């Protein structure tokens, strides 16, 4: 009775919309400036930044919405991915820096270092940097998750530890002798893979690539959540001890989704830095991780498309609001979170589901596909 076709899920639609929307913006930005459909450069930059944030939101939702792990430190994985990309972009500057040193980035010359630290080796190659943008967050998440989940740390305690993790990393990256540019971080990037970062063509291509990365994350996550593993995630979220008495090890299930989520966050960070043009320790600030949780809450956790919408809406709101009343933005964000929690516990996605026939409301779109798998 297996369906010969599968109806497009929310995640599929989100992937299609993100990909077509991102590419359309990118193409329109290449039109001549006089054209009525021309998209200005700042809009391309903003859109790219929002999409990178949306990747982070998907990562947060995978662990919070589907596995019940409220993370307040996911920006750490995002920032690590960003630093890996930033290190490559620093090496790409070459002799065009202020000091013109062919071997060392400017900040190292400024600190009177005479050689490149070992952990900067290899970062002049883009593929290596991309690999590290995945490996660094993945390895950190692996160590952290292995220790935390096997000790059965969960709930608010885990949330606090994740917050401490990102805070500790922020303090560490602030130090000049860490070798990551200290307070100022990494910036002044010139080009990527030989293409000038300030050319409209490069920026349009980066926007389209970010959209592609987000779409890929959505589809890969949909496949994972639709598998038997996805059903296990929901089982662990809803009745963790029960899974143990059936013979599963929830710590392994959580660790797997935790590491996968960190990899996605790292990808988001890499695309963020390349388009925003700077990465500094401020990206590890605890508030950033909390903001990501708010995007997911507003959009609707437990669906894949909700967080994407939430990240785009809240950040668009932030851009508009901070332009008008910058000092009031944090209050507005706090109020938004409180109102969402009180009146829209399932976020914007919950509104959509409420509009559908009764009964369907309890099914997360992803899980219906898992159930198709269970139908012989």
């Amino acid at each position, binding site marked *: 009775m297996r369906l010969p076709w599968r109806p497009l899920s929310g995640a599929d639609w989100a992937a299609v919309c993100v990909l077509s929307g991102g590419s359309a913006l990118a193409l329109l930005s290449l039109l001549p400036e006089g054209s009525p459909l021309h998209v200005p450069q700042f809009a391309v930059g903003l859109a790219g930044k929002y999409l990178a944030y949306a990747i982070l939101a998907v990562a947060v939702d995978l662990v919070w919405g589907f596995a019940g792990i409220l993370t307040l430190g996911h920006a750490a994985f995002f920032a690590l991915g960003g630093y890996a990309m930033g290190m490559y972009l620093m090496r790409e500057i070459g002799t065009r820096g202020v000091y013109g040193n062919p071997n060392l980035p400017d900040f190292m010359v400024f600190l009177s270092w005479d050689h490149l630290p070992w952990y900067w080796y290899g970062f002049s190659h883009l593929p290596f940097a991309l690999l590290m943008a995945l490996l660094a967050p993945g390895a950190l998440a692996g160590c952290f998750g292995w220790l935390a989940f096997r000790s059965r740390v969960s709930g608010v305690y885990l949330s606090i530890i994740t917050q401490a993790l990102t805070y500790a990393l922020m303090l560490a990256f602030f130090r000049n002798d860490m070798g990551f540019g200290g307070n100022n971080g990494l910036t002044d990037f010139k080009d990527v893979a030989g293409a000038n970062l300030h050319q409209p063509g490069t920026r349009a291509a980066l926007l389209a690539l970010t959209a592609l990365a987000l779409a890929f994350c959505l589809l890969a996550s949909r496949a994972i959540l639709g598998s038997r593993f996805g059903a296990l995630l929901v089982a662990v979220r809803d009745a963790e001890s029960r899974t143990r008495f059936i013979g599963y090890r929830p710590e392994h299930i959580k660790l797997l989704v935790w590491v996968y989520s960190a990899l996605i966050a790292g990808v988001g960070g890499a695309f963020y830095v390349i388009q925003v043009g700077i990465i500094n320790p401020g990206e590890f600030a605890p508030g950033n991780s909390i903001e990501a949780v708010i995007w997911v809450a507003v959009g609707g956790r437990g669906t894949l498309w909700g967080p994407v919408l939430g990240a785009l809406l809240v950040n668009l709101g932030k851009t508009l609001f901070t332009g008008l009343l910058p000092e009031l933005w944090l209050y507005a964000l706090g109020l938004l979170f409180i109102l969402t929690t009180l009146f829209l516990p399932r976020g914007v996605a919950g509104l959509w589901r409420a509009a559908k026939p009764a009964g369907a409301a309890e099914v997360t779109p992803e899980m219906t596909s898992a159930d198709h798998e269970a139908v*012989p």
Partner: protein
Amino acid sequence: MTAPIGTPATPSSLLYLDAVSVTFDGFRALNKLSLVLAHGEMRAIIGPNGAGKTTMMDVITGKTRPDTGEVAFRGVDLTRMDEPAIARLGIGRKFQKPTVFEHLTVRTNLLLSLKGGRQAFAALFARLTSDEAGRIEAILARTRLAPHANRMAGALSHGQKQWLEIGMLLGQDPELLLVDEPVAGMTDAETMQTADLLRDINRTHSVVVVEHDMAFVRALGVRVTVLHEGSVLAEGSVEQVSANPRVVEVYLGR
């Protein structure tokens, strides 16, 4: 009349508890409890609140570590194993409060419980086999849940959740089933159906049932162990234990 308390494990014993003690903050939940269950046996455990019934289940399934004493299943020491390891060894447990996976369908609940691979990574690539599908259908029929197969488990009635949990135990197909208050909140008709189901399950599995409902215990018609203050007060048939003056005293108060 009394059970062979303190006797060493014989080849016929499946579960063997000897002088097990558990203390929580000075409260002795189990006090030198000894119990032997034979292969293929069904045993009912009764006792007033606080007698240690649930703690005994916790010790057997690895949730609680005993302070002293021996717990063995098929000769394997359980006191050093955690819950998943014990479950994989062949001990299944149904909780007092039905705990099913509310946001998954009845069918998916059963699928996750089916005996087989338990590796998280392998679950990413697991495909439903026709063997698994057949086993799920059989359990659905046996637990009368076939009409509800595609409903969310959270939408089931209390009694149906109890049956789903028993169905999940069937899927797990453990050698020993520990069943904690299976008929709590059930109608009389459902209670008798459950007794029938458990007797049926007992044909191929060993079972330990904890229950307050004496009509249900009577319907099971099996050997009864009475717990009181963490140790065994009496053991025997329903008639024997209900005629025991010490049991009457404990149940009716002094």
